[in-house]
């Protein structure tokens, strides 16, 4: 039974690992995505994560089910935090338990890529250079136009 959800609360990594572990599983592979203090040459202070919540949770469940079919790993947890996160806070946790390490590691890496590509979740980045919507792997759009002195003002 996959454990897939969005949360506005801080992510406790032990919770998801405990949810996937069991006596017949010799490997628990985990990934933590963490808010970084820089992006594309800019200093980042915090990131707001926005989501289309019901669809995002559906997609997390679909990704978990596809990973189970693809890698034979039924014990999957995916937790994505939304709301306001500071530098160093966990935004995404993936945990996969399996009989052996190889399928656990492969499934974990695949899930991270799929969640990033498919879950309807967006980063709004706040930093010293302004506020930016991050769109896709490389896209970036200013959220608020920079203040400029008025002509003749």
């Amino acid at each position: 039974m996959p454990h897939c959800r969005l949360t506005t609360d801080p992510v406790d990594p032990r919770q998801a690992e405990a949810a996937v572990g069991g006596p017949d599983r010799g490997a628990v592979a985990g990934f933590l995505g963490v808010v970084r203090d820089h992006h594309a040459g800019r200093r980042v202070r915090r990131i707001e994560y926005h989501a289309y919540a019901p669809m995002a949770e559906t997609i997390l469940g679909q990704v978990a089910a596809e990973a189970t079919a693809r890698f034979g790993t039924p014990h999957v947890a995916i937790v994505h935090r939304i709301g306001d996160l500071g530098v160093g806070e966990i935004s995404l946790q993936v945990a996969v338990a399996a009989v052996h390490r190889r399928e656990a590691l492969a499934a974990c890496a695949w899930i991270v890529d799929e969640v990033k590509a498919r879950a309807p979740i967006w980063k709004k980045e706040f930093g010293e250079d302004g506020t930016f919507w991050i769109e896709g792997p490389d896209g970036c759009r200013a959220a608020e136009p920079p203040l400029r002195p008025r002509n003749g003002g």
Partner: protein
Amino acid sequence: MKVTVLLFARYREAAGDRAIVVDLTEGATLGDAWAAVRRRVPALAAETGPMMALDQAYRGPETAVLPGSEIAFFPPVSGG
């Protein structure tokens, strides 16, 4: 038919609202709904390449819209 369109992230900010109602003819598609949104929201008029969802699943612009469909448009996703 009037349908409610959900907008997210930068599109939501551009529209100043979480959702807008657009009037479509019978047989309209997601592409038609997006065109109606762009007419209604000048800040999105030049926008190309939105992601489109119907009833919380990704769908292409040719997909037919039915009364009561949950339609959503949003920029490329950037979670993780």
